[in-house]
């Protein structure tokens, strides 16, 4: 009986180790956690109020800051959605959900590699962005994808700054 307990304990420990190792390299694409409501900090406890300053009225029609559709960028030779891209896509998804525009996601790659490879990479980048947006609740039927590979660079210099600019997914309204 004691042996059996030891066996089970060691097996569970090893499984735990394995699962832990597995999670380290997983590319983060599941956005279900991001759709949850953002944590709103609890309002600070009210201190005894000093004499109130005279009320100042806000300007009558202060416009809300305009949301802007943002391109997303990728690491070299990768199509996983980075953390900065995820933030941009959350913002983009809000905009797309607020209207009915149809969108084309263009996948781009930097100049390095072969044309065929870059077309495939651009397609994977565009598809990754589409999946992310649909996971965020944007209707898949509104999004089409296209890959331009390295054919339409945004920047034409030959250095990392420029290559990073070109490793992007760009949005166009259809």
């Amino acid at each position: 009986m004691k042996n059996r307990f030891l066996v089970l304990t060691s097996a569970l420990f090893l499984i735990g180790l394995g699962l832990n190792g597995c999670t380290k390299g997983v590319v983060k694409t599941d956005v279900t956690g991001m759709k949850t409501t953002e944590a709103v900090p609890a309002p600070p406890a009210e201190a005894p109020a000093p004499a109130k300053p005279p009320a100042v009225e806000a300007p009558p029609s202060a416009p809300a800051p305009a949301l802007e559709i943002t391109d997303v960028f990728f690491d070299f030779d990768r199509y996983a959605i980075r953390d900065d891209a995820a933030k941009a896509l959350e913002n983009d998804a809000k905009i797309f959900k607020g209207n009915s525009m149809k969108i084309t996601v263009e996948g781009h790659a930097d100049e390095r590699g072969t044309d065929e490879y870059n077309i495939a990479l651009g397609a994977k980048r565009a598809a990754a962005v589409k999946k992310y947006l649909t996971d965020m609740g944007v209707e898949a039927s509104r999004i089409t994808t296209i890959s331009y590979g390295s054919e339409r660079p945004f920047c034409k210099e030959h250095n990392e700054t420029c290559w990073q600019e070109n490793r992007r997914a760009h949005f166009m309204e259809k």
Partner: protein
Amino acid sequence: MMLKMLKRILFAALFSVSMLSVDGRAAEDLISRRVSGKVVATDTEATPNTIVVKAKTAKNKDLIVGADVTDKTVIMKRGGAASLKDIRPGESVELAYTRDGKVVATSIAAK
């Protein structure tokens, strides 16, 4: 009874190893390559410096290799030591590089 226990331990151990190997695959292996081709451009102002070479694949497709040039990159021209500024667009070079998340030139030899 003993055999059953051993089987369970073996199963658990194999399961753990398989999980760890999945994780191990996520880490990209260092790839070393060597290409011959013509220099498209060099950038000695950028940090890091870069070189872009157009080569051909085994299937005769154009392959663009853009690599960072670091202090450790060995640069040779006509058999002598050189710097990146000595390498001009259009020249034929042999470029050795590593790829591990980024492409870094290990040697550049201009003919």
